[in-house]
């Protein structure tokens, strides 16, 4: 059994992960301890330094998944399916984190765990949509069908995102609109940007590694069964 662990091909993602982790620690430390407290929201607002970078990168992840889906439907190359599988999973993780971070922010700020903020609500809807896609992939065994169907589903779900956002925004505007602060003064920019870059590196590393895992499984599925000599020397 080949136990070589980290071949050259995993070095790049590991670099991304390492750099990302370092930057994340640095950016978070800055945001938590050095940046000034916000005027109205006090220290709770520091959650922004992890929430906003996660949100930006989630958005990038969804866009990437969408691109991979289209690429696969156009040229049928399995590597696009592997990348799509990876980015759908990573985007789902980020969406889940966004919902948790958002709740943790909302409770001390608005007094409720969920305030139906249009952005966060759209994230929640898309989280369920992507979880459905993951479930779909688990139920389909034929790799080509799985790839085609989940690409179609990913395209449909991604196209839905702006529609969901606008509809929830209008739906919620009839009630008291509690908006999270939009304008950010420059003292807050630096830790925000550091963490945004940090999470971007982390996400890139995650998607690269997860793609490798997906690609490995795909090549196993599509390869002809190997002829392996059994214990008594006969072929399996």
């Amino acid at each position, binding site marked *: 059994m080949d136990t070589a662990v980290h071949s050259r091909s995993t070095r790049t993602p590991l670099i991304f992960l390492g750099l990302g982790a370092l930057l994340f620690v640095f950016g978070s430390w800055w945001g938590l301890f050095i940046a000034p407290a916000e005027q109205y929201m006090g220290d709770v607002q520091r959650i922004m330094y992890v929430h906003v970078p996660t949100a930006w990168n989630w958005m990038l992840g969804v866009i990437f998944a969408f691109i991979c889906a289209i690429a696969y*439907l156009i040229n049928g190359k399995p590597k696009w399916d592997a990348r799509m599988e990876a980015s759908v999973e990573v985007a789902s993780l980020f969406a889940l984190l966004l919902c948790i971070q958002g709740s943790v922010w909302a409770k001390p700020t608005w007094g409720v765990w969920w305030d139906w903020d249009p952005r966060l609500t759209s994230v929640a*809807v*898309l989280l*369920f*949509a992507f*979880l*459905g*896609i993951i*479930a*779909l992939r688990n*139920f*389909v065994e034929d790799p080509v*069908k799985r790839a*085609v*169907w989940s*690409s*179609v*589903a990913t*395209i*449909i*779900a991604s*196209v*839905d995102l702006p*529609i*969901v956002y*606008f*509809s*929830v925004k*209008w*739906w919620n505007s009839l009630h008291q609109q509690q908006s999270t602060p939009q304008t950010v003064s420059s003292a807050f920019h630096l830790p925000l940007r550091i963490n945004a870059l940090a999470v971007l590196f982390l996400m890139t590393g995650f998607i690269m590694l997860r793609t490798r895992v997906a690609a490995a499984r795909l090549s196993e599925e599509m390869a002809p069964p190997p002829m392996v000599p059994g214990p008594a020397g006969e072929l399996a």
Partner: protein
Amino acid sequence: MIAALRKELLLQWRSRAQFLAVFVFGASSLLLFSFGIGPNAEVLRQFSAGFLWLGLLLSSTLTLAESFHDEMENRALEGLLLLPSDPRALYYGKAIANWLQLTLLGSALIPVMVVLYDAGTDRIVALLGIVALGAAGLSAPGTLYAAMTAQVRGKQTLLPLLLFPLIVPALLASVKATSLVILGDPMDSLRAWVVLLASFDAIYWALCGLLYGRVIED
């Protein structure tokens, strides 16, 4: 496409007992919602639109799945592909048939809603129009996903799992519009919601038709 549509309608007419069963399912959902909320006439009336659409949504998973049952029984799905017909024609034929069925179902549930929740209104035409538009929003992606999940094990859970997050905008718009018709529309915002619903329908009727061919190819 007309031929495909005619075939679908014929199949639906033949299984009209099934339609009745789904209607009973929908009506009993509406009843259960009132038990869940309590005998508070004021509150029930307030949320009657929501209950109607939730009931219709739940029932749609049954009718949508059923619409591919015959193909699956006789493996006719692959047979259809051998015919020299455009997969898009097949899609629209089936989607329109499903749309008609859902519109009929929604319309049939309206009197149930009126009775259970005291949610009457004079604007019957507007109400029916919204039901038609909302049903269209359900049937476009619903037909696509039903085609997919019919071929897969675990189909009963997968169809709602995939469909429900997707149709959130249609659900919101339909409920809001219906609610405005029933409870009154002081700020005249009905048009905006109808436009949203119609846009959703337009986008998904186009997109799903485009993608359908890939879903049923071998």
